[in-house]
């Protein structure tokens, strides 16, 4: 069941990321084409491309949590033994979770204010733009919960425990 859920989230996220990126390319290309071929520039292309960029970066950041590919420095981390690394990973995960929580909380809090604003050219409400933050932070939290599960499983696994104690000697 949880495996199925994870798979559904994975595939949906990948699909959303790729199609949003594709849409940004098309919209921007349309902007250039419009100006030079049809001689009829429209104002909203620049705006929509920027708004989609907010989405693609936030969703992509969630994807990077899944792949563990965010940029970090592991210079000092590698100096720790397995037990120390386990604790550090727990702290890192918790800090990330706290950030995701704040982004969801504040992101939802700002919604009523932002809902009254509309974008200059396309006239869509800014809710469409700002909701990228809490939505993506929600997906980030989803993947972080999974990492907690992996971490605690590793802690309970007696084999890993043995291994760790051997390393400590």
């Amino acid at each position: 069941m949880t495996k199925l859920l994870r798979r559904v989230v994975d595939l949906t996220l990948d699909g959303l990321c790729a199609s949003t990126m594709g849409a940004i390319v098309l919209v921007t290309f349309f902007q250039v084409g419009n100006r030079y071929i049809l001689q009829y520039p429209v104002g909203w292309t620049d705006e929509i491309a920027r708004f989609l960029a907010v989405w693609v970066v936030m969703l992509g950041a969630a994807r990077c949590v899944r792949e563990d590919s965010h940029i970090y420095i592991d210079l000092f981390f590698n100096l720790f033994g397995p037990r120390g690394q386990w604790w550090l990973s727990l702290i890192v995960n918790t800090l990330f979770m706290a950030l995701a929580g704040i982004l969801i909380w504040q992101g939802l809090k700002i919604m009523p204010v932002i809902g009254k604003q509309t974008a200059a050219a396309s006239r869509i409400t800014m809710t469409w733009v700002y909701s990228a933050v809490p939505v993506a932070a929600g997906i980030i939290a989803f993947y972080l919960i999974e990492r907690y599960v992996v971490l605690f499983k590793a802690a309970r696994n007696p084999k890993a425990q043995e291994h760790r104690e051997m390393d400590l000697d």
Partner: protein
Amino acid sequence: MDFLADHPLEMMIGLLLTQMAIRVPIAVAMGMSSVAYLIVTDSNLVLIIQTTVSNLNSFTLLAIPFFILAGELMNMSGISERLITVAKTLVGHIRGGLAHVNVVTSTLLAGMSGSAASDAAMTCRVLVPVMEKEGYPRPYAAAITAASATMGPIIPPSIPMVLVGAINSLSVGRLFFGGVMPGLLMTAGLMAIVYWHAIRRDFQRDRRATLAEIGRALKDAVLPMLTPLIILGGMMGGFFTPTEAAVVAVAYTAFLGAAVYRTIRMHHVYEALLNTVGITARIMFIVALAGLFGWILTAEQVVGRTGEFLQANVQSPALLLLYLNLLFLFLGCFLNLVTLIVLLSPVVFPLIELYGIDPIHFGVVMVLNLMIGQLTPPVGLMSFVVLSVADVKLTPFLKELWPMFLVLLAVLAAITYVPWLVLSVPDAIMGERLG
């Protein structure tokens, strides 16, 4: 608690460094240390949402995913191999042939893609095995690949230059053109050191390619080699903004791969889009959360305070440039390029303008400096990529790398103290800067 409330800025920077040290992702470290600042100063947390969205909501920054995507498509469509063939026929006959080919390939690739790491991986995969077969020590092959890959972001198009331009409201076009001459200097310098090595260590050379062979190689690569002309020409003539030029490069590369060479299939496109989102998010998530951090630095008037201190202690611009270069080289050993650009720009750029240093000149110097930092251990992305793709150990690699490293430092010194090397091209093309 009172102590923290009195020194919120110091606390924030302390938290940032502590978090970075224990492998917290840089973006999260920036976000959480800024949040801590907001909490102790009793400010509204909602600022984090506004600054994040406004930092991402930028048309200039969109050039980053586009240049990454163009590079992805280029690698998938086999265009890179065609460029290597061109380089081979042009410089293969010089003593140390394949090492020169490596340098020239990096120069050509740099003119088409904006991502140095993927260029390095590409040349590494293709050229290092061939070089080894012809008698080059593998660490040497890896070292010249890494050293020449630093040209990627100096020769336009360039992702770091887009970042510098967007963060500091500088003309990305000028920064691009500013990199042209330093990039060619790097090519010349690296080829000179390769030539010297080749004589001393008796490296192989190829037979000279016939005119017909050169012609064939050029014919096979002429369409992709038009890409830099489209990008730079389009910007030069004022037809495109850098972002638009980047999207045109994407469309052109996709057209070449799908319609002309017929090497790109639908699943390639999906894969390229996903890879692009991954690389973009890694860079831009840092930019996003640096928004609040930058806001706080401004609120605390860090620039003003540092500026007063500096002007009291550092008299000449030349000395300031020296100190800043040394600082960047030192920090470059530990932090990656994007982090440093995002973290330092808001403070450093206003400072150098106090000293009358041209920000375009300084932007190019900074990017070159930080690219050299990508080579240095313990944290050097370029070295990591090359070491893992070529499967070489660090010590022999560094032994081969240091003369090339010195060449790059010499170029850095030259462009730091001869601004003309950077500024003459953009000034000639786009006119003198006003003000």
